[in-house]
């Protein structure tokens, strides 16, 4: 059990190190940091001085060590474009992305799982067929198109909801939240739906197919033969057995929610990390890109770890097997 966890932590650490290496290579070799930092009119001597001052003449391994050490302390240098510490920039925008991603996940799960269970149990019903048809469209539509359609419908035509920004936010000192004002909540609705819709259809389809599979198993047949109620069979025995694959996908999906937040934030001009990242890509602002890369990797790896631990809670077989294998 402990060995299982330790192994997972070690694997996570390896992924992080690889990503950090990539971030370093990106940072050091893609484009010339000095050129990015100073204007055309700075003399060669001054450039060399700056180069030495930044340690760019040190052996590569020393530079890598310094990069990693700084990264551990969440120091990713100065943004080329904003001339501000990268961490300050990202930190200031993290709450916006976090709140958006959370709302989108809650929306996707709260609607997706029941929908999947329903369509799995009543697979021939009209509603199930309708949902399957619509979900394929949902999966095929690019996120930004969904966002644009929602804006056109609810912001331009109906004028019910705002089309961009976070609305009014409350500053809690370390965290600017939009969850405490009506305007902030209203502004959150369209972006959260846009971001969550793809995940919703994915989760619903997954839960559905897992339900169909589990409902065919012998132990469900046996549970029926024991005369258990449909409720106990569907929501106890069947749903619990779909959880392992569902948790896996949900873990991966939280990752892709963060990725697609980039798109949603662009559509809705949502002042989060994604918007910052996009402008960094457009302007080749490498320090921000490197920091974002590492941050996202850290989030993904953490989610994967949590997912692994959740398995252990859900499935008693892993408790034994995982420990034995390690």
């Amino acid at each position, binding site marked *: 059990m402990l060995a299982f966890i330790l192994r997972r932590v070690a694997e996570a650490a390896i992924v992080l190190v690889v990503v950090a290496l990539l971030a370093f290579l990106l940072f050091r070799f893609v484009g010339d940091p000095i050129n990015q930092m100073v204007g055309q009119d700075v003399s060669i001597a001054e450039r060399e001085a700056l180069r030495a001052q930044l340690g760019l003449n040190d052996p590569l391994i020393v530079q890598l060590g310094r990069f990693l050490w700084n990264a551990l302390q969440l120091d990713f240098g100065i943004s080329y474009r904003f001339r501000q510490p990268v961490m300050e920039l990202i930190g200031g925008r993290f709450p916006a992305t976090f709140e958006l991603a959370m709302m989108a996940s809650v929306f996707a799960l709260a609607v997706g799982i029941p929908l999947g269970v329903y369509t799995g149990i009543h697979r021939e019903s009209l509603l199930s067929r309708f949902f399957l048809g619509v979900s394929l469209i949902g999966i095929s539509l690019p996120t930004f198109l969904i966002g644009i359609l929602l804006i056109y419908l609810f912001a331009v035509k109906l004028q019910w909801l705002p089309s961009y920004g976070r609305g009014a936010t409350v500053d809690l000192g370390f965290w600017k939240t939009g969850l405490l004002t009506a305007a902030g909540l209203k502004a959150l609705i369209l972006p959260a739906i846009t971001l969550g819709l793809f995940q919703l259809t994915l989760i619903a389809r997954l839960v559905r197919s897992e339900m169909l599979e589990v409902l065919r198993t012998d132990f469900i047949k046996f549970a029926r033969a024991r005369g258990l109620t449909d409720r106990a069979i569907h929501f106890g025995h069947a749903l619990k057995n779909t959880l392992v694959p569902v948790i896996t996908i949900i873990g991966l999906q939280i990752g892709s929610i963060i990725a697609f937040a980039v798109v949603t934030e662009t559509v809705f001009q949502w002042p989060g990390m994604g918007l910052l990242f996009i402008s960094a*890509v457009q302007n080749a602002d490498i320090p921000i890109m490197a920091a974002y890369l590492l941050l996202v990797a850290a989030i993904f790896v953490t989610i*994967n770890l949590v997912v692994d631990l959740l398995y252990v809670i859900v499935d008693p077989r892993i408790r034994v097997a995982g420990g034995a294998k390690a």
Partner: protein
Amino acid sequence: MTPFAADREPGLIARALDSDVWHSFTRSPVVVVAAILTALLTLSAVFAPWIAPHDPTDLAKLDLLDSRTPPLWLEGGDKRFLLGTDNQGRDMLSAILYGLQISIGVSVLAVMLAMTIGVTAGLVAGYFGGWIESAIMRVADVQLTFPAILTALLINGAARAMLGNKSVDGAEFWVLVVSIGLSFWVQYARTVRGSTLVEKNKDYVQAARLIGIRPLAIMFRHVLPNVLGPVLVIATINLALAIITEATLSFLGVGLPPSHPSLGTLVRIGNDFLLSGEWWIALFPGFVLALLALAVNMLGDWLRDALNPKLR
């Protein structure tokens, strides 16, 4: 409905018409529609220069006075511009046709690149094993942790930084192809590696080695046909993903520039005018994009189920 019809041995065509693949095709008219739609869109993309009423890439011919003309059937429509014009007076219909060409071009090339890289990496990993395999598959694992769109964005950003600010003409097109191609190779590599591992230990490979044929040549000749089915399925599904990814990157402003717009670029341009009521600039290209992605996706879905029900 003759009572003994079932007793007669059916002919080849009759049997083909009775096969499950054909049934799954005809039983869902949606798939037939998707196939026709894909063909139509591809044809209009290929023949865009002949079909399009205007040349949207020729900036000299644009007239700002024509800008933001609504579609023909609306108040203020102009019969030269069936679907209206964008903010530079570009004919939307022509821009969409050319954009379709660019979108499909980027996606097809990107998928081909991903396929080439993936199949080669899979063959090499499966055949040589050892540290080469570990290295390739480790990279694949790490990359798989990230959604393809992020990888594409990062590669895109890195490429931009490397090219510097000197914009090479047409560079954006190839940057897109490479960044999307490099984001999608993993799935091919995994599939091909699996088959290679199976094939490697079969007797004929050993025998070929004994008579001195280069085994790698054998791997190419024998493993490749075996994995062609799954690779094709992955490619079709990837094509839909590549179309969406290209559109998304262009929409985000890191894809094709407004001077050579893809469908995604057109939606990006139109997005700025959505609030002022000029919906056609964003929604027409968006609609075509949605149709294309949906049609290809349905074909991929169907192909996967029909060819290989086990493949997820």
